[in-house]
């Protein structure tokens, strides 16, 4: 009896899983490749599908680096028609591999608060920088560091956690910031000093923030995160805090501007090309530019787009950033990661 029951449950599950696949015969399906942090309100996406008369198929392909590599690897038979989430660190690689086709529609012509190489439309930007646990610093009485060099001093021993640039995009961005801000040789000298001073390396942002950061039970009161994280802490807090428990620490050589864009995939289905253009325009529309601020925690790229209140109050943009030129990033990033691994881990 029990077995028969189990089988009928399994059959019901099988039926419900397979049925939608059989019915998938909608007019145009637009395949959108994104990184796993892509997040927009469901209603907004549904409205787009209705207005544009297309069926969206979002494909999440891991983090931005992994996604870019999947795109490059499958360029002979692309797995998507349009790609969102390629940023200024990964774009040179994608362009060199020739997986992107320039887009020249209205969104590409309008002025943007942050730009990318021609043909790729910027959608949003953000800053990778240091975050501190305010309560920890208040408790310990330790003064905030005023330069990256301070962090190599004994007083700041074992206080910083960073992500491995080989496996994490904020980790990569922070490495680039140190190189952009201090110069290549100086930067690696700093990393060597940091190794001696007990810098902790986590695999990715989540591990760093949720297992190493003091705010979540770890031992490190300084973490590489985003300039918008303090705002997100307020947004996702219990009784809507008025002040964020974390704060940004903008140091020279410690701020990287990450610009994310959307682009056409070379070799995508010709039938979906028009829909792909509509999707690109959609990402730069006022609605999306507003909502992405509190779903993906980035700043809108559309010049003059209004800021969400929580971002305005708790995620002030840094005055300066230290990003190396994209030509340099394209030529050297692989070698830099290898050198970093040698200096910090080996």
């Amino acid at each position, binding site marked *: 009896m*029990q077995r028969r029951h*189990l089988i009928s*449950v*399994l059959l019901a*599950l*099988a039926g*419900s*899983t*397979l049925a939608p*696949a059989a019915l998938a015969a909608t007019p145009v399906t637009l*395949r959108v490749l994104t990184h*796993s*942090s*892509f*997040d927009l309100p469901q209603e907004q996406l549904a409205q787009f599908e209705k207005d544009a008369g297309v069926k969206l*198929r*979002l*494909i*999440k*392909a*891991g983090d931005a*680096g992994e996604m870019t*590599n*999947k795109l*490059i*690897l*499958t360029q002979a*038979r*692309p*797995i998507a028609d349009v790609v969102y989430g390629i940023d200024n660190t990964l774009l040179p690689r994608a362009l060199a591999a020739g997986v992107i086709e320039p887009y020249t529609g209205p969104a590409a012509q309008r002025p943007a608060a942050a730009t990318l190489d021609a043909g790729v439309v910027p959608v949003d930007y953000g800053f990778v920088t240091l975050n501190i646990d305010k309560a920890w610093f208040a408790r310990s009485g330790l003064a905030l560091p005023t330069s990256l060099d301070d962090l190599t001093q004994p007083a700041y021993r074992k206080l910083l956690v960073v992500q*491995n640039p*080989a*496996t994490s995009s904020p980790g990569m961005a922070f490495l680039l910031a140190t190189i952009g801000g201090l110069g290549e040789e100086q930067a690696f000298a700093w990393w060597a000093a940091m190794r001696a001073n007990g810098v*902790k*390396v986590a*695999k990715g*942002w*989540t*591990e760093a*923030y*949720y*297992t190493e950061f003091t705010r*979540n*039970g*770890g*031992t490190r009161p300084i973490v590489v*995160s985003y300039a918008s*994280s303090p705002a*997100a*802490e307020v*947004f*996702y*807090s*219990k009784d809507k805090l008025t002040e964020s428990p*974390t704060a940004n620490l903008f140091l020279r050589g410690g701020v990287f501007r990450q610009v994310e864009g959307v682009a056409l995939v070379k070799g995508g289905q010709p039938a979906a090309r028009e829909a792909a253009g509509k999707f690109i325009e959609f990402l730069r529309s006022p609605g999306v530019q507003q909502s992405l601020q509190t779903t993906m925690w980035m700043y809108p790229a559309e010049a003059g787009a209004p800021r969400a209140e929580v971002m305005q109050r708790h995620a002030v943009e840094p005055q300066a950033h230290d990003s190396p030129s994209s030509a340099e990033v394209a030529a050297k990033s*692989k070698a830099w*990661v290898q050198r970093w*691994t040698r200096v910090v*881990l*080996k």
Partner: protein
Amino acid sequence: MKPRWLLPALPLLFLAGVLVAPVLRLLAEGLAPTVDAGPLRWFEVWQDDFLRWRVLWSLAQAVITCALALLLGLPIAWVLARLDFPGRTLALRLLMLPFVVPTLVAALGVLALWGPRGVLGAPLAAAGIELMDTPWLLLYGNLFFNLCVVVRAGVDALEQVSAPRVAAARTLGATPWRAFWRVEWPAIAPWLASSLCLVFLYCFAGFGLALVLGGQRYATVEVEIYTLVAHELQLGQASVLAVWMLLLTGGVALGHAALEKRLAAPGRVAPVPRQRPQGRAQWALLWVAVFVLFAVCAAPLLAIVARALQALLLGQGAAVLTDADTLDALWNTLRFSGLALALATALGLLHALGVRALDAAAPARPGGAAPAAVALLWRAAAFLPFVVSSVTVAFGLLLLYPQASASLALLIAAYVLLAYPFVAKSITAALDSLPASYAQAAATLGARPLRVFWRVTLPLVAPALRRGMAFAAATALGEFAVTLFLGRPEWTTLTTLIYQHLGRPGQANLDAALVLAGLLMLLALGAFALIEGRPRENARHA
């Protein structure tokens, strides 16, 4: 004779299509001579100090974990199989929960105990003992995940031991200890070897917990392959590493298959009845087992449950339970796991029956060497999904079937691939200890092969089947394959949802993740209860 050869066909096709072909495709891509990459450095693994350290460390931690798991797992298995005490069934089920818990949540649990701010970690840290970034925490994490594999196998094995033989040994004057070594140990060794092989492969090729708990220094070779493929797209060097890994792990899998085959001792008998603990020694053993189980498996889980309850009652965790996303994720988890379980069970059964058919076709005579080798290879093939680096499979699949990317078929195939070896291994072991005479008797009495299978073989291997299915279900429920194999947002499962919440800052996200982890554990317990049924019934069957 012919239809027997068809048994392995389906699992063979499956393995070839979703595992072997993609990996070969990626290796072909990586090993093809290219202009800019330069010659491949085949022996770099052994020449580069850093890489060699990683390989040796991977090996060492896997071996140490196996030894510890055997040392701790065997007494626990004996207690659970031989002694009758309240909460025994629950303990058996709770034991499998670590398998379901997402890596990162498990890490949160372990850190809540042993971390610098943890219940036990804080006093230790105050005493100057820091556990973070030491291999101890990693080994602890390995045990947390893998102890259940050894214990479950041990319990099953001990339930197959012949009661009259143990009784006979005792009557002839053997001490309980001697009876164990001479009667029980030989009977359970193949089962234990099988589970230890799994543990070894899990730890050696392990990915998740090692990285979170061990820190970057203790990362395994698999991590290196992942980095090379997913982030640096250096397929050449990744392929070289993957081939070395395959040689090492494949060797282990083959060695184990040979051992299992040789140790297999068919003999079907009345199991030793469980009894209330008697005497001081048994009570002591019971308490030691309970203590070890608590310290290794239950404590981190309790830490998670405590944090989940705290989030639910005091924090903002309650909101997530009524979220539309959560309901969708719950439904996805149920249907993907259910479907994967059904397919994994079918494939696993076929694989195991294939092993038996091939064994039967390779009689011990001089000309039987080739079929025997085939049988052995097929036996070892059940380990393939654990032996091959999963990131190479994922990228290979993309290259091979770009049109199928983000298709449900590929997603389910990924689940099945990771779940079915549990069923295959479990049933292979059960069939090994099943004398051929049973089926032969039924056949002599006129039963057709299918009927023999349905009425004789299946009921006899039912407990093993249920155990394999429980592990398969646990794998499917906790699996994070979705991201490796390209997922769609509408296919978010509970596990992926947990990671999504942990991908953002803020207390509400942490609370939500913890509550969801609690929900996942409840779901898993329900699934185990459904699959394993009432244990008393099993006992009567057996």
